[in-house]
């Protein structure tokens, strides 16, 4: 309803004086904003009372930066709005060569442990990356395909992780037995949450899922008898190679992985195995999503995302359709969670905060909602960037928040804007594609 009240596209190019004045105003605002928070740091004084440390040099630098940035921006944009509706060159490239990129990425991922540069560290980072890719793909079902904003995705990740940890510890079940249980439990949690709330409007849904994520976390913290409270669960059984453990000295009657294949014992075996396990889970997720998009249910999700009222008119039950998306997304979250638990060997509520949900959401959003390759690119950016620049660790979330805002402004549909329906009744003249 707000489409028509944008300012008309006046193409009057402002003069230099007006630009400097505008930049000076922006710098002044920045100065006032930064002066108390950045310029005066509250620190405990010698007598325990708070005193202030002054950093007005930083404030001045910040204001100057805003001045120059604003000036540069006004020259770069020349009065045009920042947002672009059209797809950028990256997006065109990916939509044209998407399949080849996918194959190349897959080959690289499969060959990674054999590469000369792959140390234990590289494989570890790669495993983390693959897990985020999998979570991104899972959330993509909910956010990208069905258009439901889920801010509590980490709750399902937590359900998966805790179900694996508890079933493995108390009932001695193995990873492969727990994996479906974790997925089913997470899906059930998704249905239990989704059933009452999926009738709500999109942004209400966002807040309720956020609340649900917090409820799960608070229950995990406070339900000491089962979850171990804030201390979490330690000594979660590590994965085995289909029954052959990765230990140097296997117990009575057991054969270890290295004995089975006649290899020298190495801790790398488990790391590489975990990597392939994560990759396999992620690929299953990807295959599932790619296939289900072409089924009636997948088309119903995309139709529902575009226009709910039209869907109702066509006889699609919106609540049930959304519920399937929600439950399936939750299930993949649960799978990823149980992998997380077996990989870490230790879980606590600390790992399942809102920030984690925000990171997964950021991956989906930055990648371009609905785009599978976009998720991989965005996950790579988000996971690898802090690894490359270790000293930027503190600023990671700052960068994150700013990137979410800027990407929404610059390209509201994500880096790889891929909101084309998977199927079209009448292909566009000129061969489709965005």
């Amino acid at each position, binding site marked *: *309803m*707000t*489409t*028509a*009240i*944008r*300012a008309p596209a006046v193409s009057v190019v402002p003069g230099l004086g007006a630009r400097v004045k505008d930049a000076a105003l922006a710098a002044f*605002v920045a100065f*006032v*904003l930064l002066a*108390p*928070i*950045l310029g*005066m*740091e*509250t620190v405990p004084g010698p007598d325990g*009372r*708070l*005193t*202030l440390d002054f950093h007005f040099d930083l404030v001045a630098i910040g204001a100057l930066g805003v001045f120059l940035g604003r000036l540069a921006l006004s020259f770069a944009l020349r009065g045009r*709005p*920042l*947002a672009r509706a059209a797809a950028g060159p990256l997006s065109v490239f990916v939509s044209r060569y998407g399949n080849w990129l996918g194959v190349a990425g897959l080959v690289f991922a499969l060959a990674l442990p054999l590469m000369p540069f792959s140390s234990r560290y590289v494989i570890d980072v790669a495993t983390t990356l693959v897990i985020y890719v999998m979570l991104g793909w899972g959330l993509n079902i909910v956010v990208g395909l069905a*258009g439901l*904003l889920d*801010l509590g995705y980490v709750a399902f990740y937590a359900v998966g992780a805790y179900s694996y940890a508890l079933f493995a510890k108390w009932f001695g079940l193995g990873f492969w037995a727990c994996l479906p249980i974790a997925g089913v439990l997470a899906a059930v949690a998704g249905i239990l949450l989704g059933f*009452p*709330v999926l009738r*709500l*409007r*999109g*942004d*209400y849904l*966002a*807040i*309720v899922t*956020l*609340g649900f994520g*917090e*409820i799960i976390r*608070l229950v995990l*913290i*406070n339900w000491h008898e089962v979850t171990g409270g804030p201390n979490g669960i330690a000594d979660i059984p590590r994965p085995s190679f289909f029954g052959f453990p990765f230990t140097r000295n296997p117990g009575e009657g057991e054969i270890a992985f290295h004995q089975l294949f006649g290899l020298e014992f190495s801790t790398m075996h488990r790391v590489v195995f975990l990597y392939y396990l994560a990759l396999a889970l992620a690929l299953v997720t990807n295959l599932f999503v790619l296939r289900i998009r072409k089924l009636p249910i997948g088309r119903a999700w995309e139709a529902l995302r575009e226009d709910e*009222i039209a869907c109702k008119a066509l006889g699609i039950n919106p609540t049930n359709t959304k519920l399937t998306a929600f439950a399936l997304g939750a299930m993949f979250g649960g799978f990823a969670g149980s992998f997380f638990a077996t990989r870490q060997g230790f879980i606590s509520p600390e790992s399942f905060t*809102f*920030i984690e949900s*925000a990171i997964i*959401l950021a991956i989906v*959003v930055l990648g371009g909602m609905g785009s599978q390759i976009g998720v991989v690119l965005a996950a790579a950016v988000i996971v690898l960037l802090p690894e490359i620049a270790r000293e930027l660790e*503190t600023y990671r*979330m*700052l960068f994150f*928040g*700013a990137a*979410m*805002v800027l990407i*929404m*402004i610059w390209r*509201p*549909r994500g880096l790889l804007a891929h909101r084309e329906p998977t199927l079209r009744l009448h292909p566009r003249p000129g061969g489709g594609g965005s």
Partner: protein
Amino acid sequence: MAYFLQQLINGVALGMVYGLIAIGYSMVYGIIGMINFAHGEIYMIGAFVSLIAFTLLGMLGVSWAPLALVVVLLTAIAITSLYGWTVERIAYRPLRGSFRLAPLISAIGMSIFLQTYVQITQGAKIKTLQPVITGGFTFTDASGFTVTISWIQILIVLLTLVLMAGFTWVIAKTPLGRAQRACQQDLKMAALCGVDVDRTISLTFVIGAALAAVAGLMATLYYGVIDFFIGFLAGVKAFTAAVLGGIGSIPGAMLGGLVLGLAEAFWSGYFSIEYKDVAAFTILVIVLIFLPTGILGQPEIEKV
């Protein structure tokens, strides 16, 4: 009975704070139909500006509490309002008319940004403010229980009532209030009738931020401890209050805040303090399911 009264007093004071934050959510939602997810962070910044202003005044040797309070109140309102204005200008205005979830995602990004910004610049540790106002009234009943109303609680209630009265007047009588009500009814039509929509929306954010700044100041005085993370929970609870009262309705936001504050106080007083946040979220879910338009809200008509 005395225990009940004490919880009632605590609940009312807490509810007033929630109500003030909730108005910001409710107004913005009423006009542009988005959840300003960063509003909780605006409240947190209000609390931090108050803390910094108190510390600065303390270092300058201003020790007369009423003067300090007035100065801090005005400073916090001015600076926090500017934050509210800037957030709208940077993160929401370019997205007006974009697809539905874009402003919400942008708001989440803004919220993360502001939280980390304060965490980096002010440190992650809990900040403790020396009590500025102490004391209050104490009553003792026959069975020996005491009921305390602190000066801060009285201040919170009075200040909130004054602000509410002033605010109701602004909405009902001033040109700005008229423009806001026009925008709430129909943004496009208001623009056609000559209402400066961008300016009205900006001022709505400024007013919301000013009220959040007052809430931040009062929370700083009331609890005495703040950290960079307080905005998240307060924001979600205030949003719950806004939904509870009927989002888009200003008296509803205040009412919702009161109901939530009382529910939380009685829950902590009679059941378990660990699960008080769970109680707040559960109320949100239950309200949305059974009373999606809230107590004072109007049903939304979906037009094609």
